[in-house]
C-alpha cells in the first residue's frame, strides 16, 4: 500500500483516519485535507500529513476504534494508538497512569482505572498470542478531557478462546457472560483467568462505566449494577472492544 515515493493510497489514509474514502475526497475538494495527485490522477497522501491530521482532529476515539474493528480488511492503527506487543502496551499504560494521577478528583481511583485498562489490554495479548487473525496487537487510545479510554483488538474474540476450555459455549452472549462471571481461562490447561471479573467488580463499586463488545454481544456496566446487562449488538466483528468512562 506504500508507494515508492512514500505516499499512501486514499484507501489506506481513510482507514487510518477511520472515515470513508468519499469523505477524504470531499475534504480534498474543500481544502480541509489536500491530497497529492498521481500520474493516474488518483489521490495519494503523505503518511505524516495523515498522522498530523489525526493528532489535531481527535474528535471521537470511540468512533475511530469502532471503525477500526469493524473494517473488513485489517490495517494497523495510527502509530500513537497502536500497541503491537505487550511491551509497548505496558509503556503506554504507564504513561496513562502518570497522566491520570495528575487529575485532582481521580487521586483515589486513578490506579483502578489504570488496572482496569491494564487487565483488558492484557487479556487481548494473553488470549491471542501467536493466533492473531490479521492485525497483531491492540488499539489503545484515551482522551482525558472527555474521560474516555478505548481498547480494541482484532483477535479471535471471547467465544473462540473460551470454547477451548468450555466447548459447550454456543454464542458470543454466553461467552461474554462467562468471561465476566466465571473463573475460567481460554489458555487451557492453565486454570487461571480473572481479569474481567476484577474489571466488573471495580466498575460496579466505583464511578466508572464500561462498554464491552465481543463478536455480536455487548454489555454495559456501571456503579451499582448487580446483574450483567448483555445484549446482541447491531454490529459484529472478530475480537474485543472496550470503552471505559470515568
Amino acid at each position, binding site marked *: 500500500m506504500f508507494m515508492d515515493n512514500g505516499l499512501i493510497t486514499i484507501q489506506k489514509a481513510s482507514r487510518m483516519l477511520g472515515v470513508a474514502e468519499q469523505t477524504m475526497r470531499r475534504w480534498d475538494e474543500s481544502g480541509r485535507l489536500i491530497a497529492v495527485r498521481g500520474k493516474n490522477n488518483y489521490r495519494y497522501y503523505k503518511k505524516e500529513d495523515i498522522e498530523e491530521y489525526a493528532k489535531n482532529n481527535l474528535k471521537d476515539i470511540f468512533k475511530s476504534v469502532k471503525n477500526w474493528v469493524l473494517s473488513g480488511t485489517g490495517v494497523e492503527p495510527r502509530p500513537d494508538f497502536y500497541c503491537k506487543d*505487550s511491551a509497548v*502496551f*505496558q509503556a503506554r*499504560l*504507564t504513561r496513562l*497512569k502518570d497522566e491520570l*494521577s495528575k487529575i485532582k478528583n481521580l487521586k*483515589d481511583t486513578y*490506579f*483502578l482505572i*489504570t*488496572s482496569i485498562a*491494564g*487487565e483488558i489490554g*492484557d487479556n487481548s*495479548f*494473553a488470549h491471542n498470542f501467536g493466533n492473531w487473525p490479521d492485525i497483531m496487537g491492540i488499539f489503545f487510545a484515551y482522551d482525558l478531557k472527555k474521560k474516555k479510554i478505548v481498547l480494541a483488538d482484532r483477535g479471535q474474540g471471547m467465544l473462540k478462546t473460551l470454547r477451548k476450555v468450555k466447548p459447550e459455549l454456543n454464542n458470543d452472549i454466553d461467552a461474554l457472560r462467562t468471561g465476566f462471571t466465571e*473463573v475460567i481461562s481460554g489458555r487451557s490447561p492453565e486454570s*487461571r483467568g*480473572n*481479569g474481567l*471479573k*476484577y474489571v466488573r*467488580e*471495580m466498575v460496579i463499586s466505583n464511578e466508572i462505566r464500561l462498554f464491552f463488545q465481543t463478536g455480536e454481544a455487548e454489555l454495559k456496566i456501571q456503579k451499582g449494577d448487580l446483574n450483567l446487562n448483555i445484549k446482541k449488538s447491531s454490529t459484529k466483528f472478530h475480537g474485543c472492544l472496550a470503552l471505559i468512562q470515568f
Partner: protein
Amino acid sequence: MTIYLKKFGTLLNGRMFGKEAFAAFLPSLKDVSADEKIEVDFDGVEVFSPSWGDEFLGSLINKFGERVVLINTSNPSVKTTLRFLENINKTKFKRGS
C-alpha cells in the same frame, strides 16, 4: 529473605510480566533455607493488578506455601487486588506488619 516488588516496577500489570518476574527472580530463591520466611514487600508499588499478582504470588506460594508473608500492603491498589485474589482463589494471604 525479602522481595522488594518495587524493583520490578511501580506499575505491576500483565500475566506474562508477572510470570517473567517470577522466572527472573527464581535463581535468587535457590539459597533460601528450609524454614526461612519469604517477605514480599509492596512498599512503593503504585498499581498492582490481579493478573500480575496471580502469576507472581501464586507461583511463590506454590513453592513456599505458608512461609510467604506480605508486608506494606496498605496502598489502596494493593489492598483491593489482594482482597480480590483472596476471594477468587478462596484463600487468605499471610500478612505481616
